[in-house]
């Protein structure tokens, strides 16, 4: 005897509507990633926010101090120095990466064997550990014996101390960062360039546009979504990227005279050199919040990289 509630029908009906089933499947697919992000990124961020309210000595003692770490920050000249260095580093890195990445992409845009090799060469730094990259560059620019340091007097520039002079050290680490990252941004721009249909260039050719007019009126405007993405992630990379820490930590350690001490280097020093975990956590929280505010503002201003014609 069948006791089924559902009357017998020709087709097997699901208890869920087709739309709900799709919805559930979608969320099931992103669940593993979402969980991973939550546990390994969200939770630590939340904990560091909490940690910022404590005085932590690193040996198990936690003392609630409220906003004390934050007021300390406001009065800490080294924090402000690091914030300034971070801003300078970002102000140089973001535009340089944009220009270098796009220029390289335009140069190797045509697909042929030669350009394939060139593309791989520009991307090659990413195959190497950042520490190794920093060590090699340090060897190239170190005072007296570095290859570049020996070259500058020969070029009549005098003996420049690339890493020892507070006026040059930041430029040096910016240059190495650009060198390391530009191949990656070249790839992103190559993808963006390939997304621009060839017909627009043909139409522009018929309209009488030369290479420069095509770049200004076709390439650049149609690259807007890519540009938005590049500026956004290069900004994040400048403020909190692994290259910012590794290259600076290995090449200068934040010196000389704190001239290359970006915030993540200073935070690391406070936490692991001086054991001020609570203070470091408070600064990290400020860093993350200001980064979120910046990207959020950019997102709002550009409507998420979408444009008026869409």
């Amino acid at each position, binding site marked *: 005897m069948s006791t089924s509630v559902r009357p017998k029908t020709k087709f097997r009906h699901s208890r869920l509507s087709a739309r709900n089933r799709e919805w559930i499947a979608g969320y099931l697919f992103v669940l593993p990633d979402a969980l991973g992000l939550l546990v390994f990124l969200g939770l630590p961020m939340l904990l560091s926010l909490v940690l910022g309210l404590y005085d932590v000595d690193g040996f198990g003692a936690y003392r609630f101090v409220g906003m004390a770490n934050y007021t300390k920050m406001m009065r800490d000249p080294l924090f402000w120095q690091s914030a300034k260095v971070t801003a300078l580093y970002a102000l140089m890195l973001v535009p340089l990466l944009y220009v270098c990445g796009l220029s390289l992409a335009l140069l190797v845009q045509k697909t042929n064997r030669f350009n394939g090799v060139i593309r791989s060469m520009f991307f090659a730094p990413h195959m190497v550990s950042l520490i190794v990259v920093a060590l090699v560059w340090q060897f190239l620019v170190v005072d007296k014996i570095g290859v570049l340091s020996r070259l500058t007097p020969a070029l009549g520039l005098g003996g420049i101390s690339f890493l020892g002079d507070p006026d040059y050290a930041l430029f040096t680490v910016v240059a190495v960062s650009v060198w390391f990252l530009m191949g990656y941004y070249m790839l992103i721009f190559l993808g963006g360039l390939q997304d621009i249909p060839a017909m627009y260039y043909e*139409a522009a*050719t018929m*309209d*009488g*546009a030369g290479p420069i007019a095509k770049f200004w009126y*076709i390439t650049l405007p*149609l690259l*807007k979504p890519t540009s938005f993405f590049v500026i956004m992630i290069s900004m994040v990379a400048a403020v909190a990227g692994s290259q910012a820490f590794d290259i600076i930590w290995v090449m200068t350690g934040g010196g000389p005279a704190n001239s290359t001490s970006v915030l993540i280097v200073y935070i690391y020093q406070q936490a692991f050199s001086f054991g001020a975990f609570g203070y470091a956590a408070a600064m990290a929280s400020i860093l993350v919040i200001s980064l979120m505010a910046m990207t959020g503002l950019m997102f709002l201003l550009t409507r998420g990289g979408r444009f008026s*014609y869409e």
Partner: protein
Amino acid sequence: MARVEIENITKRYGHLEVVHGVSACIEDGEFVILVGPSGCGKSTLLRMIAGLEHISDGTISIDGEVVNDVAPKDRNIAMVFQNYALYPHMTVAQNMAFSLKLSGLGKDETRDKVGNAARILGLEKLLDRYPGQLSGGQRQRVAMGRAIVRDPEVFLFDEPLSNLDAKLRVQMRAEIKSLHQRLKTTTIYVTHDQVEAMTMADRIVVMRDGLIEQVGSPLDLYDEPANLFVAGFIGSPTMNFIEGAMEADIFRGTGGIECHSNLPAAFHGALVAGIRPDKIKLGKSGGPFEVLVVEPTGAETQVVVQSGDLQLVALVQGRVTYRPGESVGVTLDETAVHFFDARTEQRIEHLDRNLGSVSRQ
């Protein structure tokens, strides 16, 4: 306005030759359509005229001047692309003004020209819209507007209607034709749609495999196709072909088809007879042909019949009462039968087409 001369044009990509020494002449003010199946080289030829493709061999002249090495912008031609290629980040007005802006034309003059073109095409109210906000037909008109503002000597169209739905295509066909009648600019138009070619062209150039098969007015091609390919390509529904041979003055074809002909007496080779669907009459029931499909379209009805291996399509005016499975007789209008050499596929000219209609019931 200008005359375009194409002489012995060859196009090679590496070792692959895709256009094999093609020659044609487009007269001043003429509307010429290049038509052929995909891959026949028609678009390549158009792009060589535009200057978007390098010419491997031969010359293209506009108004008597060889333009092989002249940059596209200096050829004084304008092109309408298949996907319109409207710049998505520019408004309709900016799209139309782009070439004028690049040529350094003043603002007032640019506005006048764009306004004028917009008026011709009925785009005045859309000038501030972006292409993404327009319908297919409107985009098509903007693409034409972009070509018109430049006041070129030659218009090139590369399958401009293939992205439109059937109804809009018919409407735009008429608009392009009336635009040409109004501006009288030399126009070269590429399509794979023979109906477009038939309805719009002053002359049609039929291409296949990188060669020109026939050049002529639409009705010339329809009435006297030079070979089997043109016969099958021009006209819809397509021409029926019947293989067979002459016995005395009677052509005997597959499916038991027979018809009188006064082909040159010496012709004894294998033949293909061609007959347009509207020149086939279906008789009363009881004939040797079986009705397979009946496709009514209102004003006329298309009937597919079969006998043995031979399938014929007949186009009957008005409505019919045939049903699939029914047997019918078939009558050919013998004055309208075309004969082709089965080996060379070339047309064989009749000596005299005035023959009485004899049928096989």
